[in-house]
């Protein structure tokens, strides 16, 4: 797969339209890498010139900041802002709502001002404008339920864009009991992804998978690589016959 970096564009003297912020999950997690590749497919199909930072990208600092480690957050954020500003980046797309939230809401206070969109917003506008179309019918007849991520939903009040992406499919969409502003967390945020649970009687992802299973859905659609991991783990543990996909994977099916 051919993806150019900002450095490569710069050496050609071209400024790409968009920066694709891949994030740690999108770069290193084998399941989330598929979403990164899917977004590259989408961007190519829509003929949008884009770049990644490649090795110059670091974690946005979201998990460090929420764990309470402001030093590590500032270190990462200030370095990232240096890099982004050096390339005069104007517009960023992310596949991760945590990266999205940090870049959009928290970098301005540190001197990083960009137009930041989440890929569900990009998908919505490309579908609405007819620049991309639903491809494939692998999931024909499957019932889909959409899981709101906290950082796209409550944190940024984006509930409709991902849902309107799913409306481009012929599939039946069912809502979970707790959805939109009342959506239940997958259990990964606030640094929980990187630690053991505190003592309790159930894992949060199991609680959410139970709720998703109650809708009778065959597919849980997510918009966050961490929700994806949590939901997948939950489905496996409960031995449910449910698949978990990022919304982009439901649009370009293979």
């Amino acid at each position: 797969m051919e993806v150019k970096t900002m450095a490569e564009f710069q050496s050609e003297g071209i400024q790409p339209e968009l920066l694709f912020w891949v994030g740690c999950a999108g770069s290193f997690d084998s399941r989330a890498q598929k979403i990164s590749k899917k977004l590259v497919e989408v961007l190519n199909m829509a003929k949008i010139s884009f770049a990644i930072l490649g090795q110059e990208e670091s974690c946005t600092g979201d998990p460090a900041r929420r764990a309470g480690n402001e030093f590590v957050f500032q270190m990462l954020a200030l370095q990232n802002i240096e890099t982004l500003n050096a390339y005069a980046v104007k517009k960023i797309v992310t596949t991760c709502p945590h990266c999205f939230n940090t870049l959009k809401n928290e970098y301005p206070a540190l001197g990083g001002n960009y137009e930041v969109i989440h890929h569900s917003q990009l998908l919505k506008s490309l579908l609405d404008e007819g620049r991309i179309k639903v491809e494939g019918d692998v999931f024909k007849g499957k019932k889909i339920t959409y899981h709101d991520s906290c950082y796209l939903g409550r944190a940024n009040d984006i509930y409709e864009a991902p849902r309107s992406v799913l409306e481009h499919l012929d599939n039946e969409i069912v809502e979970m009991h707790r959805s939109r502003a009342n959506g239940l967390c997958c259990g990964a945020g606030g640094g929980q992804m990187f630690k053991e649970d505190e003592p309790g009687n159930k894992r949060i992802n199991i609680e959410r998978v139970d709720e998703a299973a109650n809708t009778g859905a065959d597919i849980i659609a997510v918009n966050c690589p961490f929700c994806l991991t949590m939901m997948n783990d939950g489905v496996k543990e409960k031995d449910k016959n449910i698949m978990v996909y990022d919304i982009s994977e439901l649009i370009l099916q293979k």
Partner: protein
Amino acid sequence: MKAGQIIFIIILAVVAYLAYKSYSKIIYNIRLGKANRIVDRPKDRWRNVILIALGQKKMFKKVVPAFLHLFIYLAFLLTQVELIEILLDGILGKHRILAPVLGGFYTLVIATVEILSVLALVATSAFLIRRLILKIPRFFQSEMIGWPSKDAIIILGLEALLLFAIFTMNGTDVLLQGIMPEKYPDTGTLPVSQFLGPWLFGGMETSTLMFLERMAWWLHVLAVFGFLLYLPISKHLHILLAFPNTYFAKLTPKGEMDNMPDVMSEVKSMLGLTTDDVAVGDGAMDELPEFGAKDVMDLPWNQLLAAYTCTECGRCTSQCPANLTGKKLSPRKIMMDVRDRAEEVGEQMRKRPADSEEVFDDGRSLFDYISPEEIHACTTCNACVEACPIMINPLDIILQLRRYEILTLSQGPSDWVPMFNSLENTGAVWQLPEERDAWIRQ
């Protein structure tokens, strides 16, 4: 001057004095918090006050309790109009002084109070049933054991007493108006008491009616005064503080965490990103600075206001994913702990000599109330913030405590250490041998 008048004025003066004392304490305790100037976006702030505090918009996430709550709230608001007359009557020794002056408008006000009072009685009964018979789970979690549960029942009991007084007062008055119109001015037709009065009190001696009317009037007055003095020691302070709390609430996106400028400038100079010549290590930094919050004095004052505003309804906790899955964290408990600690600190601070220059230290902190296990369970999902009908933000406090634990104490979950190391060394949350852009080539 009649004896009743004198007694009333004495009681009024005592109540005013006691109220002044206890409300001053609350203000003092709130001001223990850190200075935080909130002057931006006044229009949006007033909008929140009108929609969320006055309009109770967020209550309507649960429709039935929202209506029940609205009945009590409106009855309460309108009873304040009636209270003006009670004060005037009490001081001047008159009876229903405003009735002849206001005429039809008076009837309208009292009639509305009566109708709302009936609705409030329904609501109060429903709320008591929820707590005593249905035993709704969120009212029975560990932090509600003891005083908080009693507090809720006392308030509802006091409300029932007040409503009982209003109807006895009006019901006997309706009959007395027919017997002694010169002493009991015409109130116009009252929607409830015109039936309730004759039905309950019809056929009684005039003197009995007069006695009952006076008793009910005094009961009404004393219930209101009692309520006023009870508010500052109860969760019911929200009827007053919901207004300032929604005004001073956070307006930025829920996902945005406040920046720490001191840490930023330090990291900037460390990374060589700063252009101005800041003298680093000129002695000013000899003492290690403290970051985050370990006590109420480290929290911005508006968080203490929020703690006093909390009415312990538990909507936050009932939405918290950690709490729902059996973890110890309860956002409601966080707010109650902050308030209880503010009470404790305030109490001790007031005992100190006014000129004491020592930094307050009683060897205790918020961490004596809130365990690390609680703050470690938070997923920062904002469900508690979303759930609060009056814009309280327990998440901000949890994050301040986490900052203290990690930055000042260098403690925290050991699982996070490899993550921090990896972030510092490789810029990725996981320590992995492959390169960040390897996925392109796979």
